[in-house]
């Protein structure tokens, strides 16, 4: 009976979300689009952060790399306007595999370290991409940014539905992992890497797989985001706040739980949109920071944890 209500509720929410572009204002639809993008990243963050408990502060690097790759392919290659949408598909077809390969390669050095070193060095991925963007202005536009020709921009409903599909996809990937062989291997590695290796689980290969899986939807999100924004600045796709928001979302909601990122996205983005309207005299990033302090000290398991504990 309870399961049945759950499914009905889910269906209702999905139908509601599908109707949104026809009902709500442009601003709110855009805000929801951004929420889907961040939810995708947060769910991806949780593949490593939740299943394997490797805090990956560099999840945003995959998003930013794909966004820039899309923009660079579309602006620096001599596309004839006659080709139309083909150019976009080529750009996306370059950006996503490139990001996945990047994820597979950086896994080699990154998984040599664990715990604190892993968390901070993964953040180094973001910093290094920031510097590369700033130092290769001929390719990336440097601090002036790069503009994608307007003929490639998707309409708002197109972007919205693509974002929605990605977010649903990312959450489904996590729920699939949770029930699969892969999930059992991740869980075993999280509890004891030594014992996991002793029963035949290859630690590195599984962590690398997790990283590649987590990079693909984030990369797709980067592509849509780049096309929708049209103009990319380093700060908007690789800025510290953009790259950290997914981590905050996952942690507020509850890392390691399939619904954690969803709950977190609703709460954090709700606050975020509220803050825009409240127009406080303090920069948002400072509030995010204080929010992290609060989560770290008082709510290490996230809100899902509180709810499930009470439910029992």
């Amino acid at each position, binding site marked *: 009976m309870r399961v049945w209500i759950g499914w009905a509720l889910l269906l209702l929410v999905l139908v509601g979300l599908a109707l949104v572009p026809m009902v709500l204002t442009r601003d709110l639809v855009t805000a929801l689009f951004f929420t889907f993008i961040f939810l995708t990243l947060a769910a991806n963050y949780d593949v490593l952060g939740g299943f394997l408990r490797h805090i990956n502060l560099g999840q945003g690097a995959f998003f930013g790399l794909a966004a820039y790759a899309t923009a660079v392919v579309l602006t620096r290659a001599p596309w004839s306007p006659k080709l139309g949408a083909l150019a976009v598909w080529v750009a996306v077809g370059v950006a996503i595999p490139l990001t996945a390969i990047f994820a597979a390669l950086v896994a080699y050095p990154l998984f040599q370290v664990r715990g604190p070193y892993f968390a901070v060095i993964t953040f180094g991925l973001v910093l290094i991409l920031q510097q590369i963007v700033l130092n290769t202005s001929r390719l990336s536009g440097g601090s002036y940014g790069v503009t994608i020709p307007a003929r490639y921009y998707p309409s708002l409903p197109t972007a919205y539905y693509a974002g929605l599909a990605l977010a649903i996809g990312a959450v489904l990937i996590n729920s699939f992992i949770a*029930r*699969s*062989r892969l999930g*059992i*291997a991740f*869980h*075993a590695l*999280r*509890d*004891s890497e*030594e*014992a*996991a*290796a*002793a*029963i*035949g*689980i*290859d*630690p590195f290969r599984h962590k690398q797989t997790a990283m590649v899986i987590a990079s693909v939807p984030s990369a797709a999100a980067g592509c849509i985001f780049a096309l929708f924004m049209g103009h990319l600045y380093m700060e908007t796709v690789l800025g510290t706040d953009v790259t950290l928001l997914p981590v905050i979302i996952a942690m507020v909601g509850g890392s390691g739980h399939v619904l954690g990122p969803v709950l977190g996205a609703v709460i954090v983005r709700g606050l975020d949109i509220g803050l825009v309207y409240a127009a406080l005299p303090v920069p948002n990033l400072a509030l995010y920071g204080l929010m992290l302090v609060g989560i770290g000290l008082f709510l290490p398991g996230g809100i899902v944890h509180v709810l499930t504990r009470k439910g029992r």
Partner: protein
Amino acid sequence: MPLLEVIHVSKTFGGLRALDGVNLSVERGETFGLIGPNGAGKTTLFNVISGFLQADEGQVRFHGHDLVGLRPHQICRRGVARTFQLVQPFSDMTVLDNVAAACLFGRHRIASIQGARERARHLLELVRLDAKASVPAGSLTLSERKRLEIVRALATGPDLLLLDEVMAGLTPAEGQEMGATIRHMQAEFHLTLLIIEHNVRLVTGLSHRMAVLNHGSMIAEGEPTEVVRHPEVIKAYLGERRSRGA
């Protein structure tokens, strides 16, 4: 051809020679006991055989193939399983999934989770943990954890099982029971066992052959009753005791 051959293996940590030219061979189907005082190098030898440490020199042959250079999960898939002296259950997973994971990723690599869980349930009955199948492994008692550790290693489908002090910390009654379980498992699964144990009496009762390691070298090898009477062995154990008393 012996199932396991350790040929002149040495391992040094900083200035400490933990293993010094160790030779050992274990025949298929036998139970081989390895004893020795604390710090003699027993666990180091296990770590070298199971791939957690690389030997500085020497060879480890299993079924005639060299294991040196393989990583732990590869060695597991060749049919060598081990337990850890400090047991390492997957604490947040259920007891059942601890064992099912070994069925999924060990040598037989059962394809379906359903199949792995069925097999795991059967194996848990062997060590009388079937009633605890759905509790998190972190909530087990020490004696239960030790049994889980063994059955998880068994679930990988090994030919050779390395048991590292599985009776340490148990009451005498529990120790006896563990001995019976080990014998039963060996018969049912045609296992070859290499056992490290501190409790000389229990291991003497279980083993077909025994060897004694002291300061990284083998000082005696043979029939269990002969080995424990060997003067060098008595000196190693008593010498240790005397210096402790001083």
